[in-house]
């Protein structure tokens, strides 16, 4: 199994090189340079050119690329034009928020989707199955934006059950209180995003189970006289959950990338919100950094998926 994982990690090296090259090209294509915004209209053009030359902007592309990579490894992603802070600092503040929120909504999503998918698959064609299908139409068809706003309005403003914005209460002090407050702020957006994110898991699990039911190995199990409940828990559900588990890695990155809407609605300072702000204010160095970050995250997501798969599926484990 370790061999599989090591080989899989090695594959990531060329992937990261390609990704970094793409992002570098993207960064070069974006308007502006490190001096945009810091230079007034009266500065001598000669002086600007000298500054740019000193910064290496006239070097051949491969030298620039090399410098860019070296900087990257030193955690130097440039300055945010609008926030006047290093990009790394700007991102650092947000990443944690987004990761925790994504994790919570992922957990909620699985906690809801797995039992629903199992029920729908096991009793396909029954009334329960049809009710779940209708639920699925809603989570798939309703505009996320509207659901989030409604949820915020009802549970946040009307019922006052949950805070309506931010990540932490200003009154919270001490580790325990702070953590509790952060969690409290995450609950409503986490649940809403999680429930809306159930569609594909429910649908996929349902069809996997229906498919597994008619597999020969299930018939073998039944021919041993294994009681129906046991046939489901030991043979059908286990085998049907395998692709879901394998997909979890991708799900995580998808959620982190897809948290734009929920963070906007809940004024939750995370990556998604930062991305929107950076685009609207043309803060290109931040945009580039976020693209790079999500790209790397996606690569790690697929790595994670492959590792999970190699853990749960013996057919892969052995190789």
């Amino acid at each position, binding site marked *: 199994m370790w061999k599989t994982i090591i080989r899989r990690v090695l594959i990531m090296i060329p992937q990261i090189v390609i990704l970094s090259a793409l992002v570098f090209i993207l960064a070069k294509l974006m308007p502006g340079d490190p001096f945009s915004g810091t230079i007034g209209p009266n500065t001598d053009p000669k002086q600007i050119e000298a500054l740019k030359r000193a910064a290496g902007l006239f070097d051949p592309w491969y030298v620039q690329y090399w410098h860019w990579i070296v900087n990257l490894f030193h955690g130097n992603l440039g300055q945010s034009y609008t926030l006047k802070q290093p990009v790394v600092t700007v991102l650092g503040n947000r990443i944690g928020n987004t990761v925790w929120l994504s994790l919570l909504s992922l957990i909620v999503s699985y906690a809801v989707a797995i039992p629903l998918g199992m029920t729908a698959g096991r009793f396909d064609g029954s009334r329960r199955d049809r009710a779940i299908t209708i639920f699925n139409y809603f989570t798939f068809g309703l505009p996320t934006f509207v659901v989030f706003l409604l949820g915020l309005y009802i549970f946040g403003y009307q019922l006052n059950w949950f805070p309506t914005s931010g990540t932490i209460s200003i009154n919270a002090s001490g580790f325990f209180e702070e953590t509790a407050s952060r969690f409290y702020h995450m609950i409503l957006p986490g649940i809403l995003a999680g429930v809306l994110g159930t569609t594909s898991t429910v649908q996929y699990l349902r069809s996997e189970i229906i498919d597994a039911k008619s*597999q*020969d*190995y299930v*018939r*073998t*199990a*039944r*021919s*041993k*006289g*294994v*009681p*129906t409940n046991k046939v489901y828990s*030991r*043979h059908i559900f*286990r*085998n049907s959950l*395998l692709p879901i588990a394998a997909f979890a890695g991708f799900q995580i990155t998808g959620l982190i990338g897809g948290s734009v809407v929920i963070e906007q609605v809940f004024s939750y300072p995370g990556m998604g919100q930062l991305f929107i702000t950076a685009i609207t204010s043309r803060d290109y160095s931040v945009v580039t950094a976020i693209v790079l970050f999500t790209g790397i995250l996606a690569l790690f997501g697929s790595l994670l998926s492959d590792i999970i798969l190699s853990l*749960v*599926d*013996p*057919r892969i484990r*052995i190789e």
Partner: protein
Amino acid sequence: MKEETLLSINGVSVAFKINGEFYTAIDDVSLELHRDEVLAIVGESGSGKSTLATTVIGLHNMNATKITGEINFQNKEILELSEDEFNDIRGDEMGMIFQDPLAALNPLIRIGDQIKESLDVHSDMTEDQKQARVHELLNQVGIPHPERVAKQFPHQLSGGMRQRIIIAIAIANKPQLIIADEPTTALDVTIQAQILDLLKDIQRENHAGIILITHDLGVVAEVADTVAVMYAGEIVEQAPVATLFNDAKHPYTRSLLRAMPTIDSEDDELYVVEGAVPSIKDMDRNSDLFAPRIPWTKPDVGHPVLKEIAPNHYVRGESWREFKFKDEL
């Protein structure tokens, strides 16, 4: 020698629901199986062999299947059993060996655990005893290094090995009845022979009855005592094995025998029965169902019935009396 009757199937019909309508796949089949007997069921693909076997072991999806008739197994009317009652018998008093060894094992569960599952359900052995029994079974079905194989996963074994595992599962609790649905079709000839020998050994040990489903008449000649020939869900001829090979009557049986490759026949001389078994949706149950495939012969009028033409030799209809192959006309 008067053998004890183990299983008797009386007038069993099976219909499947397809798009809301029932279509008959097995029509009024009656068979008897005794201890120590091998009953072979032969017929082309689609003739209903697996459907009949699945009925005996009670594995049809009852939401979409209608079964009528009676099946008596060791003095129990098994069609009347509840799911729980049937689970007590399945895998204990009767075991089934399935057609496709590649798909019949769960890819995620270790071989040993898949065999042990039969013991978990039906025996009150301790874990150690079960473990020992698993190794004993693996040994019995001819698997080298049982301890190691028990810890392996199905994909690590060859097709022949997997078929042996499936046999080990089916016989784990020493069943009285073994249903083997084409146990050797997927295997090469030497392994086929080994598997058949193995089945015979197991039978001798437990005095079990075996229903052997196959479309390989060579296999039938080797191991069967009685043969039932099925076509379109009906038995068209049934006889002791020697009678069937020496004195077959029904045109279908004779066609099958003629199509059987022998050592001195060359490939291009092989007889072919034109056409195929009709789909259950297209069967006119009120006619001579095999007649369309021998158009030069005068068919029976209406639905031909099965008659005992000599002791223990049953043939359907009358058209066989006149039947000649085309080149004999």
